[in-house]
């Protein structure tokens, strides 16, 4: 096992009235993309900012690239790429000027022109930051994080608030960076993002990691491969009957629709249709999806990520 790029153990941080991080352990290996997943207020930003040396933890050990903030701060700053959740870069600078500014802080790294090309902002090279779209701003922020040729990249919600196309564009850039063999720690509350980008994830809730592993392992751990959702108008449904359908593990009602946790989709769907026909119920909606990290979160906490 290689030495960890990031190791956090028993990390705690409390603010006046809330415990933001409550005894967190993490280990991130070189070359992987690690996702911190959780609902609003789970403590993701607090955790990542402690790792970035921007926030002092109350207790716990943080080791970044084998070094510690107290002793190797200056060296660490040279080797980390950081993107914060809420930074607004100066509106009055152009893209190129912004990159030149950030580039001047680092010993090594690409030329500003290369950094801009890397995030495909060449066309906007001389545009003011204030006139960029949301997705372009996020790509610029990413470029600012990459100008120092970092060994470890921290991204705090890199795609929040972006439209699907802009998200996809940013994902491609992150995947490219990963291919260079560098390490990424990112936070997100999009399950699909974590599934797309991350080799391993930790699901956070109330300052603790409630699950850890590869997305595949986590999904497998709930023993459900698919979720089937359907509704039958105003007619009443008997959950007991539904749970006896072969291939169905459990059933529940949610917002007027029925939800089945299914292990064998090819058995369950025909049987479900047959059962509904037998009872004479009209099927008004039917959809299925493979189990996601969202379903993992729901099965662990009983809440959805978005409204947790």
């Amino acid at each position, binding site marked *: 096992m290689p030495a960890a790029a990031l190791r956090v153990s028993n990390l705690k941080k409390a603010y006046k009235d809330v415990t933001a991080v409550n005894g967190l352990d993490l280990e991130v290996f070189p070359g992987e993309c690690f996702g911190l997943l959780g609902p609003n207020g789970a403590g993701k930003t607090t955790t990542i900012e402690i790792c970035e040396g921007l926030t002092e933890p109350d207790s716990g050990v943080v080791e970044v690239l084998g070094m510690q903030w107290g002793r190797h701060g200056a060296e660490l*700053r040279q080797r980390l790429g*950081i993107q914060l959740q809420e*930074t*607004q870069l*100066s509106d*009055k*600078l152009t893209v190129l*000027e912004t990159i030149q500014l*950030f580039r*001047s802080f680092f010993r090594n790294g690409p030329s500003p022109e290369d950094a801009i090309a890397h995030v495909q902002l060449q066309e906007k090279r001389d545009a003011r930051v204030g006139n960029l779209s949301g997705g372009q701003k996020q790509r610029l922020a990413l470029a600012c994080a990459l100008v120092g040729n970092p060994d470890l990249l921290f991204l705090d919600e890199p795609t929040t608030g972006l439209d699907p196309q802009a998200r996809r564009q940013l994902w491609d850039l992150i995947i490219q960076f990963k291919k260079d063999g560098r390490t990424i720690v990112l936070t997100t509350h999009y399950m699909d993002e974590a599934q797309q980008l991350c080799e391993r994830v930790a699901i956070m809730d109330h300052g603790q990691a409630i699950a850890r592993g590869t997305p595949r392992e986590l999904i497998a751990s709930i023993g459900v491969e698919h979720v089937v959702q359907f509704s039958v108008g105003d007619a009443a449904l008997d959950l007991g009957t539904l749970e006896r359908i072969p291939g169905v593990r459990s059933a529940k009602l949610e917002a007027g629709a029925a939800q089945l946790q299914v292990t064998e989709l090819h058995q369950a769907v025909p049987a479900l249709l047959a059962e509904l026909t037998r009872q004479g119920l009209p099927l008004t909606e039917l959809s299925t999806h493979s189990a996601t990290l969202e379903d993992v979160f729901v099965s662990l906490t009983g809440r959805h990520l978005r409204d947790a």
Partner: protein
Amino acid sequence: MRSHPLFQLTLLRFREFVREPEAVFWNFAFPLLLTAGLGVAFRDQAPQPIPVAAVTQQLAAALRADPQLRVEERTPEAALNLLHTGRVALIAEPGPNASVVYRYDEANPDARSARLVADRAVQSAAGRSDPVPASNALVREPGSRYIDFLVPGMIGMGLMNGGMWSLVFSIVDTRRRKLLKRIVATPMPRHHYLLSFLVWRLVLLPCEVGIPLGFGVWVFGVPLRGPLWQFALLCLLGALTFGSIGLLISSRARTIEAASGIMNLVQLPMWIVSGVFFSAERFPAVVQPLVRALPLTALNDALRANMLQGSGLGQMVPQVAVLGVCMVVCFGSALKLFRWR
């Protein structure tokens, strides 16, 4: 080849400044317009005759004999109307027993002069002659005019505004955008960030002082009697002092509103009492020690002593001390309190 972070940060200051047209206006154009306006309004003019009214032909003739008065002959009602609307300073009307009554507002200095001049004219028309012959020798010297007083004050005020605004606005805005936190997450040495403001202030200083000074000297002939290098030193000291106050104000504030509230609280008293537009001596003796302890009073006094009286630094020890102490205390506290996020 990467450029030096201090160079890039100073460039950032420059770009933020010139791309904010309002900042350029308030820094350069506004003080100039104000100086020009006040200079013209209070320029030295040949003394104008004082308008007065007389209600009889006889009185009017007597008053007309004095060129310092401009006399209008009116009915008593019309004359009163002129007095109440400020178009004449005084009314001369006949009283009982061949006496003369002067009707005027005692609080109006023009009216008081008019009273003296009018009475002299009336008395000499009646046959009085002066027992002692007298003549006038008039002086009008640069250095004692209002514009001479005003220009050093405007330079001092410009140093205060520029020093405080540029720092406070930039730092607090950077903090509000969480950009300060982002910047300290890079390897940038923190003192470079603060130094960039110092460098930028030094670059801007010659323009900030030179424009109003040049304007005053060329257009109005304001004297510059002290050693120029000492004048420059005083400006530098002033800029650093107000920069330190600005740094202290911006050391913790998270919003522009909060910071500009504090800044107005600091600046407003100095605009009024520190002798920008009128002399600080006008305030009562009990508050004078307080007025003298304000950095803008010290700067204005020192600049005036240098420009108008040609005094050397040796004669400005108290003023230089006030500025120095203020600078050190504010800068020290600002470094202690500064919130880097």
